[in-house]
């Protein structure tokens, strides 16, 4: 399930990791679907950039994540009970918290609905925003540290295929160690501690995985990972007791800042902004306020575009019809010789009538120049001579003809009739009674013009 980012208009995002007072700033630029990252200076934020956003995060220690399970299959109904379920689980009132539901789906047995909720106390959000403001930052988005680390980890180091693969991402910072536990692609939980404590990490791991999975993927990140000796020994100690593969992300010190910048620009399965409600950044508030105007203008533009396209289509069609009509009319005038008496839609009929009259008048010319009957007469006489047929009488006209003949065998007459069949004429032979005492076969060949030769 890909959801829009809270700032879909942004093309540039700055992600900030405060890193114990030495802030790390990463700038991400979106070009189509691609993101490019670069290190940035805080001065860059002071320059006005209308399509840029700044994303910071609430640390794991000042926020919480919970997977809630409602025994209701309908996600819509389950959503209404998550609030109460969360209230039961929290040691403080949920009314004092800013909460976001990041993901929701059916339970494995499809009888209930589970949802991933993140949140923080409003007092902590206020403190966090004040701390950022003191450092000179006014973030548009307040993401969640653990969720940001997990989602960026998936993007940069894909999980090892296989069911039940444990995946532990450790962020080793200057002032804290945060580790996120998941299975395959699914986030499970996130924890933080001030100092490296392998025992505590293993204890939490054992509570998350009562049976140690066959494959465990360890991922290292954070500025502390750059200190090879110290951190390497910590990882070695962990992996000796919980074996698995180990990978360190590229540029581990900027990993959290990169994660925050990337999440501000790309739609994903767990977009998160806890700076909402009364904490909402003025820029986002203004953008939200203008949203109904944008929709109205988009509808107006779509309506106008539809009108324009349809009108253009109507004009094009009527132009095409008028051209076709003009062509018909000019052809018909060329045949009838006059534009008068040519009603629209009757061009062919009128032209055909005019042609019939013209053809009648042209008959003497056509008959004399094409000589169809002369050719037929020659063909009959030649066929009769070659087939040994005697013609007794013959009457030929321009449209039909009859030949009375005698042949020693009917086959000769039939052969002659076949020879007279052609493009212009068709013929049929019929046997007749011969004169008494005559052994020859009498026949009649009837002929007709196959098609009117104009």
């Amino acid at each position, binding site marked *: 399930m890909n959801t829009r980012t809270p700032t879909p208009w942004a093309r540039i995002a700055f992600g900030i990791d405060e890193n114990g007072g030495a802030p790390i700033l990463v700038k991400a630029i979106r070009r189509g679907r691609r993101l490019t990252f670069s290190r940035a200076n805080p001065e860059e934020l002071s320059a006005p950039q209308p399509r840029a956003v700044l994303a910071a995060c609430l640390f794991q220690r000042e926020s919480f994540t919970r997977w809630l399970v409602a025994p209701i299959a309908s996600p819509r109904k389950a959503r209404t009970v998550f609030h109460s379920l969360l209230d039961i689980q929290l040691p403080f009132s949920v009314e004092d918290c800013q909460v976001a539901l990041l993901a929701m789906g059916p339970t494995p047995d499809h009888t209930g609905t589970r949802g991933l909720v993140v949140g923080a106390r409003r007092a902590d959000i206020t403190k966090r925003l004040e701390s950022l403001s003191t450092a000179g930052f006014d973030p548009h988005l307040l993401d969640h540290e653990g969720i940001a680390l997990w989602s960026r980890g998936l993007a940069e180091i894909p999980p090892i295929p296989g069911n039940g693969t444990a995946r532990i991402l450790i962020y080793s910072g200057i002032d804290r160690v945060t580790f996120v536990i998941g299975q395959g692609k699914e986030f499970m939980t996130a924890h933080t501690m001030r100092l490296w404590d392998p025992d505590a990490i293993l204890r939490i791991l054992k509570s998350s995985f009562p049976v140690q999975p066959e494959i465990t993927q360890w991922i290292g990140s954070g500025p502390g990972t750059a200190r090879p000796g110290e951190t390497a020994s910590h990882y070695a100690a962990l992996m000796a007791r919980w074996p698995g593969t180990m990978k360190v992300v590229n540029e581990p010190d900027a990993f959290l800042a990169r994660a925050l910048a990337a999440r501000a620009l790309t739609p994903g399965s767990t977009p998160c902004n806890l700076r909402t409600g009364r904490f909402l950044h003025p820029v986002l508030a203004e953008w939200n306020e203008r949203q*109904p*105007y944008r929709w*109205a*203008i988009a*509808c*107006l533009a*779509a*309506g*106008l*575009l*539809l*009108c324009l396209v*349809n*009108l253009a*289509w*109507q004009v094009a*069609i009527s132009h*095409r*019809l008028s051209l*076709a*009509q003009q*062509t*018909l009319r000019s*052809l*018909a005038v*060329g*045949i009838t010789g006059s534009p008068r008496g040519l009603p629209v839609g009757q*061009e*062919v009929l009128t*032209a*055909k009538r005019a*042609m019939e009259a*013209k*053809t009648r*008048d*042209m*008959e*003497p*010319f*056509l*008959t*004399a*120049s*094409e*000589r169809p*009957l*002369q050719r037929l*007469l*020659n063909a009959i*006489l030649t066929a009769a001579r070659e087939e040994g047929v*005697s*013609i*007794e*009488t*013959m*009457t*030929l*006209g*321009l449209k039909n003809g009859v030949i009375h003949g005698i042949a020693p065998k009917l086959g000769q007459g039939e052969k002659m009739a076949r020879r007279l069949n052609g493009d212009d004429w068709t013929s049929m032979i019929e046997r007749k009674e011969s004169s008494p005492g005559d052994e020859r076969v009498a026949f009649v060949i009837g002929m007709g013009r196959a098609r009117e030769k*104009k």
Partner: protein
Amino acid sequence: MKKNKSTLIKLWIVAGLSLAAGLLLTVHSISELSRVTELLARKAADARELSVLRLQVGRDQTLLEVYSHYPAMPTPFETLARSTLSGAAMTTRTTTTLPSVPGWIAKKVSVDFTDITGDDLGRILETAGAAQPPWGLVEATLFASPTAGRVAKATLVMESAERQEP
């Protein structure tokens, strides 16, 4: 705030109207599509049919143009027949004139030949066809002769065109 809201409502009304108009026009265009396609196809078929007729008109005009270079009156068929067959038994039965295209009349002549060979008949028709303007055979009736290669009686109806001088 109130002013903003009323502006937004007005904007939505205009947007809704324009969208409705666009959708109505689209529905109208879609419903018109099959009728227009059919109409265009019919007009194209008509144009093809008329083009064929126009070609025929062109051919007729070319033929008239050729005839306009011939002498106005055709050589009488009897003269042509006699020049081909000296001493043939020949009787002209009828000569008629019929209306033709403007400026021309059709001339028809019916001639009987008795005891004539088939070859001679062919030569007469060949000569008549080569004349300027030519004569064309319109009807032929032949009765066989007991003598091989001869025709006891042949009636030929010939036709030619005569130009009417203005």
